[in-house]
């Protein structure tokens, strides 16, 4: 779908504001998982690479696009995995197993 420049800038600006407001509230306790999670979300760039490779418009696009898919997918898989592993470790005090 076509997206004109001004609409794109509006989208970017609003997303940046939302980002600031939401992320400002993230406890410093969780800043490391925050970084690995945003990193995984950022790898949504994989959809661009998928379309690029899928349309197969040129050999160069297919080669570079495939490498791009590999790089982004490893971020998605690894990023979500490690974020969840870290978050699992955060436990409140209270009754704990000895």
């Amino acid at each position, binding site marked *: 779908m076509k997206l004109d420049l001004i609409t794109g800038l509006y989208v970017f600006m609003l997303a940046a504001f939302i980002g600031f407001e939401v*992320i400002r509230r993230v406890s410093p*306790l969780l*800043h*490391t998982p925050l970084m690995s999670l945003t990193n995984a979300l950022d790898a949504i760039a994989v959809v*661009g690479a998928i*379309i690029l490779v*899928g349309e197969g418009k040129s050999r160069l696009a297919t080669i570079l696009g495939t490498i791009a898919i590999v790089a*982004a997918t490893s971020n998605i898989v690894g990023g979500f995995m490690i974020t969840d592993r870290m*978050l699992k470790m955060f436990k409140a005090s209270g009754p704990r197993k000895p």
Partner: protein
Amino acid sequence: MIASEYILEIAYLIATALFVLSLKWLSSPVTARRGVWAGEAGMLLAIVGTLLHGGIVSYRWIAIGLVLGTMIGVPLGKVAMTAVPQRTALSHAFGALCVTLVGTSEFYLRAPNVPGFMMGVLSLEVILGALTFTGSLMAAGKLQEVLPQRPITYKGQNFVNLGLLAIAIGIGATLVKHPDKMYLFPFMIGIPLVFGVMMIIPIGGADMPTVISLLNSYAGLSAAAMGFVLQSKLLIIAGALDGASGFILSVNMSKAMNRSFTNVLFGAFGQEQVTAKGAKEARPVRSASPEEAAGILTAASKVVIVPGYGMAVAQAQHKVRELYDALTKRGVDVKFGIHPVAGRMPGHMNVLLAEADIPYDKLLEMDEINGDFPQTDVALIIGANDVTNPAAREDTSSPIYGMPILDVDKAHTVMVIKRGMGAGFAGIENPLYYMDKTLMLFGDAKNFVGSIVREISGGHN
């Protein structure tokens, strides 16, 4: 617009909402895991939607890419918690690589007929992507200690670096005007690749938390630029969220290191690390044995433990947890004071302590804990140095003057576990060690804490 396109757009819309919710739920440890699931669901929806999208004619290379990526991603998701900083730097590099390669393909598919605005964002995308790629690889190498950690500086370094960046931007501007000059494009990638390396060379280990955050922000911005090129709102939003997150963390880190904001944007790096090895008279310090330390700790009612990266290097976090358990069992109130730059990336120390099973509600950030020190009986410092240095508050001539610190010197007794009297990361003397209320506990952090625990649990109950 045909129906299937609407469906894809709706899928992207839902994915966007899930991404925002994902970050929102991360605000508290109670809901944080739900945030990961929301992110995963959004990601899955967007990818499946894209795969079903009509424009795709061949799936072979897509499938190969997805499988290979998963095979690389799984081991990267299983690294040790101490290795999370370098893993994060590596994933910034991968993200930037993806963006740069897609940008390059888009250029060669469209050139020479690229509209000015499109060429502008494309230039931004590949310049940011390329410098983030090599910069993050360098950062990962330094953190993994395959590259020398000490900063390498030379005369005119900033001039060379900014010159390189200016040339790359100049090429971008030329291409905006004359997109038919396709021979310029490889230079617009090559020069930022070199710049990325040069940018990290002058950075020492102590600055790594700031650098990782900054690279995080760049990776996000380059992805947002890619969103403009591909006209994808989802990508613009994801990039903006990532960019904002990296930006906030960079500002946090720069504040915690007492660096100005422009300093962070344009190379706070390479700031000369003053090695104050001046007049070093042998001043007397008081030291204590594990038995004495155990006696003081059990007699206390309020203890604050201040861990630094030295604790993680000595692998002492599990012994620290035993100490926490032993003292808590005796009714001592034990909390942890965490400086924002403790560890190698923002929040790293919390992860290391959580891994050792220390409850997160006992981990307090600097601003929360500082008011407690005057009522604290014992401040126990393990493997931290500069972040406890009172000179940052009092001595205007100190290189770290103005840096926010943990006010451990206000506690009734200060105990410092340290290998010897060597200076810290920044090579600065710490007057804390010479105070009357300070006891130095010389030894390896893991062994020393272990001995204290044995004393406490071996003693009469």
